[in-house]
C-alpha cells in the first residue's frame, strides 16, 4: 500500500537528512576509535561538510556513534542514553569492539556485543577504522535516517 508522505513529513525528512546531529559515546573501548572519530571533525576529513554537528546531549541527537565492547559498568548508561535519544534514531557501531568484542570478547567484565542492548544500523569495521571509513558509515546512517522518517509517514512507528 502506497501512502504519500505528507508535506510536513517530507519537510522533516529533508531537514534531518541535511543536518543530522551526532552523539558519541565510548562504552569501554580503548580510545583508538574515539580519536579517529575526533579526527573526522577536523580540517582534513571535515564531517561538518555534511551538515553534521557533534552534540553534547543525546536529547538533541539523531545519530548515536558508539565505540567500545560494552563493559558491565557502561551498560546502564548506554541504555539510558539510547532511551533519551528521540526517535527516529540511527546507531552507528564504530570499530570491531561493538561488533564482536574484539580482543576483549572473553573478558568477564565485557557484556557486549552492542547488539545485545540496542539495535545497530551501521557497522564500521576496523580496529580502529580510518576516519574515511567512519565518514562513509555516517553517510550510510544518514540514508537510513531518511528512510526511517518515511516509514513513520506510512503509519509505522519510529525506531
Amino acid at each position, binding site marked *: 500500500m502506497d501512502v504519500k508522505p505528507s508535506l510536513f513529513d517530507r519537510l522533516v525528512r529533508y531537514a534531518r537528512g541535511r543536518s543530522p546531529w551526532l552523539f558519541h559515546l*565510548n562504552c*569501554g*573501548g*580503548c*580510545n*583508538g576509535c574515539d580519536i579517529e572519530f575526533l579526527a573526522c571533525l577536523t580540517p582534513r576529513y571535515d564531517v561538518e561538510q555534511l551538515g553534521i554537528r557533534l552534540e553534547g546531549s543525546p536529547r538533541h541527537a539523531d545519530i548515536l556513534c558508539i565505540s567500545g565492547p560494552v563493559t558491565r559498568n557502561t551498560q546502564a548508561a548506554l541504555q539510558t542514553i539510547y532511551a533519551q535519544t528521540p526517535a527516529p534514531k540511527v546507531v552507528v557501531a564504530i570499530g570491531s569492539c561493538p561488533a564482536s568484542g574484539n*580482543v576483549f570478547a572473553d*573478558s*568477564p567484565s565485557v557484556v557486549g556485543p552492542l547488539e545485545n542492548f540496542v539495535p545497530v544500523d551501521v557497522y564500521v569495521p576496523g580496529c580502529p577504522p580510518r576516519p574515511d571509513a567512519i565518514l562513509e558509515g555516517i553517510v550510510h546512517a544518514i540514508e537510513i535516517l531518511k528512510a526511517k522518517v518515511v516509514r513513520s509517514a506510512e503509519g509505522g512507528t519510529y525506531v
Partner: protein
Amino acid sequence: MSYTIPIGPYHPALEEPYKLELECEGERVRAAHLQIGFNFRAIELLAQSRNVIQNIALFERVCGICSNVHTLTYCLAVENLLGIEPPLRAQYIRVIVAELERLHSHILWAGAAAHILGFQTLFMTCFRLREIVMDLLESISGNRVNYAMNAVGGVNRDLTDPRTVQEGVHQIRRAVEEQLIPVFTTDPTVRARCAGVGVLTKEEALAWGAVGPTARASGVAQDLRQAQPYLIYDRLDFSVPVQESGDVLARIIVRALEMVESCLMIEQALDQLPSGEWRGQLFVELPPGEAVARIEAPRGEVFYYLASDGGEKPVRVKVRTPSFVNMPTVRLMLKDATLADAPLIQASIDPCYSCTDR
C-alpha cells in the same frame, strides 16, 4: 548554600566515560569526587589466559592514544625476563615511533585544551598539524592508530624511508615553534583562562606522587628518559622542560616545549640510525621468574610487572599507568576553583581513563 553537581559518566568535553561530583558553594568548588572504572575490561586477567605473543595485541589495546607505549613496555619486560636485547636498529626505530607517538598525543591534547577554552581556530590548527604526524606513523607502520610495531626482541617493520620522516618532523617542529608556542604563551585569551588556575604546588606534586608533565609543570624535574635511560635515549641530546608555577598554563608550556624536544630527538635518531638487523627472535616459552619494565609515556611513567612459571602464558601481568596516579591530584587542583574552570583543570592533566581502568 552548598550543592552537589554530578557530571558524567558521558561528558561532552572528554571522550571517555567517568563520573565527577563537584561539591560547590556558589561559584566555588569546595570538593571533588571522581568515580572511575567504566572502562574496566579486565585486561590483566585476560593476559593470563593468552600466550606471550598474543598478549602484545591485547596490550596494544589498553590505550588507543599511547598504544605503542604499552607494547613497548610489555616487550621490554619480556626481554628483561629472557635476558635478550633487541638489535640496535630496532632500538632506534622504537625510539622514533615512541617520540612520534608523544608528538601526536601532545598535539591531540593541545587541540582538546583549545576546544575546552573555546578557541576553535587553535583546535583546528592543532588537528591539522596532528595529521602530519599521523601520516608519518602510517608511512612507518601501515596504520594510523595501534601501529603493531613492537615484537619481542625487535620491531615488526623496518623504517624504509627516513627522508620523508625527517622532512615531516622538520615541518612539525617549525609549526610548533612558530604557531602553537607563541599562541599558547602570549595569547591574552589563553593566559586569562590558564594562568594561576588549578595550581598544584611542588610539595603536593611530590606528596601525591604525580608523574610526567603534570609533575614537571610543578617543578619536579623527573623524566625516566633522562633519569634511567632505556633503549638508546642515552645517545640523544635533549633537555627536560620544567616549569615552576604548577598552573594550567605551566602544563601547557611543558607539553609544548616537549613537542619541540621530541622533534629534535627524532631528528637526531634519524641521523644516527644504524643499518643492520631489526627483526625480533622467535621463541616459544618464558623462563620462570619475574621482570619489570618502566618507560616514560606521554603522560608520565608506565610500569609493567610480569611473572612467569615457565609456561607459555604469563601467570601475572600488572600494569600501572600514569593517569592512575595523576588523577587524584585533580582533587587538589579543583579545590576552590570556579565551576567554569573545572573542565579545563581536569583536562590539564591529560587524563586517560581507558588505561587507568584497563
